[in-house]
């Protein structure tokens, strides 16, 4: 039983890390209906930029500020160069544009900073400790705390500020938002900037875990099923989805994996997401779309 609990807790905490990436998706999808495949590359780009600046002898917080500024500029450029010319195009076109964007970001990050693996130290040791006979990683708890804080801040931003009101109105109905005088371009730039910041936080946590390297951009593939289960437009959904995916993925690997030869972590979340979708085609918390002819 303690072993089961240990796997479960480990899985839940890993799931929180997946949610961190998925949150960036949701922000952009809510505000602009764009399915941003480049979120993973943004995580890589942010983490690689941060690490490379730190390695050049800049202090932690200064490096953080510089990276934040870079992500803001990046958001503005993306809005200007990629999104604005594609206004009113079908969603599938915008998705493919973000696919191109993700290639550009990966290429750019590695051209600028090289493709070797960088270590990242956040000052939190990855040492396990024992709670009632269950081993829990200190770092995982820290990551979960960071994710919780991030969700809290985003919640406040969305629900208590004027900017949040604008964001929510755009998410609700773009045309109506335009009609009451909300600047759509500014909202998009803000949303991309915020998901850039989320990408930085996710990148730092993941980078400290597995090292800052190319494979960081592949966590987008882990975040996808999380997103699908939670629904594209719900931040709470990504947390629930992340916990579900994280826990079931680890449990499946431990208990089902040996029966079929192991290594099922790659596809199991997708099959799980598929099963969920067959029951609820728009995810757990997604809003069903009404279609008119």
């Amino acid at each position, binding site marked *: 039983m303690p072993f089961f609990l240990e796997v479960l807790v480990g899985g839940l905490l890993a799931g929180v890390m997946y949610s961190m990436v998925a949150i960036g998706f949701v922000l952009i999808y809510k505000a602009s209906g764009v399915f941003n495949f480049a979120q993973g590359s943004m995580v890589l780009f942010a983490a690689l930029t941060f690490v490379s600046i730190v390695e050049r002898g800049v202090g932690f917080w200064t490096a953080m500020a510089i990276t934040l500024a870079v992500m803001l500029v990046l958001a503005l450029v993306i809005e200007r160069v990629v999104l604005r010319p594609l206004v009113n195009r079908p969603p*599938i076109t915008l998705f493919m*544009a973000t696919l*191109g964007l993700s290639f550009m970001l*990966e290429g750019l990050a590695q051209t600028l900073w090289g493709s070797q693996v960088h270590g990242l130290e956040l000052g939190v040791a990855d040492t396990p400790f024992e709670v009632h006979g269950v081993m829990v990683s200190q770092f995982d708890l820290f990551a979960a705390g960071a994710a919780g804080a991030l969700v809290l801040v985003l919640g406040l931003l969305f629900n208590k500020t004027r900017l949040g009101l604008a964001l929510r109105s755009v998410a609700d109905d773009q045309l109506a938002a335009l009609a009451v005088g909300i600047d759509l371009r500014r909202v998009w730039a803000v949303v991309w900037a915020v998901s850039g910041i989320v990408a930085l936080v996710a990148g730092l946590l993941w980078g400290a875990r597995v090292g800052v390297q190319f494979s960081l951009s592949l966590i987008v593939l882990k975040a996808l099923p999380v997103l699908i289960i939670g629904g594209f437009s719900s931040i709470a959904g990504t947390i629930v989805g992340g916990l579900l995916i994280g826990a079931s993925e680890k449990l499946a690997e431990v208990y089902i994996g040996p029966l079929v*030869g192991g290594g099922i972590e*790659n596809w199991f979340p*997708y099959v799980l997401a*598929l099963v969920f979708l*067959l029951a609820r*085609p728009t995810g757990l918390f997604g809003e069903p779309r009404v279609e008119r002819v």
Partner: protein
Amino acid sequence: MALASTDEIFSRVPASRVRVDRLAGVGVLALAYGVVPAVGTDYWFSAILIPFLVLALAGVGLNVLTGYAGQLSLGSAAFMAVGAFASYNFLLRVPHLPLLVAFALGGLTAAGVGVVFGLPSLRIKGFYLIVSTLAAQFFVEWALTKWSWFSNDNASGVITAPPLLVLGHDFSGPRGRYLLALTVVLALGMVARNLVRGEVGRNWMAVRDMDTAAAVIGIPILKTKLLAFATSSFYCGVAGALWAFAYLGTVEPHGFDLDRSFQVLFIIIIGGLGSIAGAFLGAAFIVLLPILMDNVATRFLAGVVDPSNLENLQKLVFGGLIIFFLIKEPEGLARLLRTAAERLRRRAVVR
């Protein structure tokens, strides 16, 4: 996703244009079967022409599903893998099976797998469908690696092509493999062209443009979508078999990873969504660009660009091109070519 304009679908093609098109077709055939085999070098066959033909076929397959039927797929490489490994196993386990029949059986197996992963498309729409095609991608790669039966108990899942014999002729040399790929790809390309111009193609486009509306006017959604998945997977499957047998000779499951799926998707974005010719143009572009960049880098930028950085630069250029094409010419190279041809023709008429 309204890509094909209505005049393209309903217009009566003038007889003079049909003649010109037919002439161009004969010209291409003469070039492909007459001139190229005579002047081509082994390098051209093995490194450029064969991968171009095979990727074009995979592009045609994905274009049926994404360009015509509007179902986004990130699993093309999985269906290619199924085709390759199925053909291999049919040849291995069925004595005296002709090569081309094995290709067809491989394609049909891929079609079957495609239908299974296409089933969710009936309930799930749009981006949510990506999850189904990605599930196919990861599951197939995993299954082919884990279960060694598929690769005849090879430790690392590698399969090796037997000698390519068709009707007693050996097509194992570079020129032979080129002719084999060319024949298969051209034949299937013609079938696809007729398919998308007929009732089936119109049904696909109707479902793509709005499936609710298509259902209202009496198009059977279930049949249409699954037929698109089956056809697309069949083409990808045969392309995979050619990739393994005619291009590489030996492949492992990881040769058909997600990056290959992206490559096929980029082919149809750059070449032109919803265009058979576009798949060929896009494939040519995607095969030639890295070689071109390689040459430019070694000739002119030696010392400036680190060779290890070339791959990253390629990514940068590819990504940029994707965005450029989506913004400036969403119908891709196929549209550019058509516009250029129209202009030439008009000029000829005026004179």
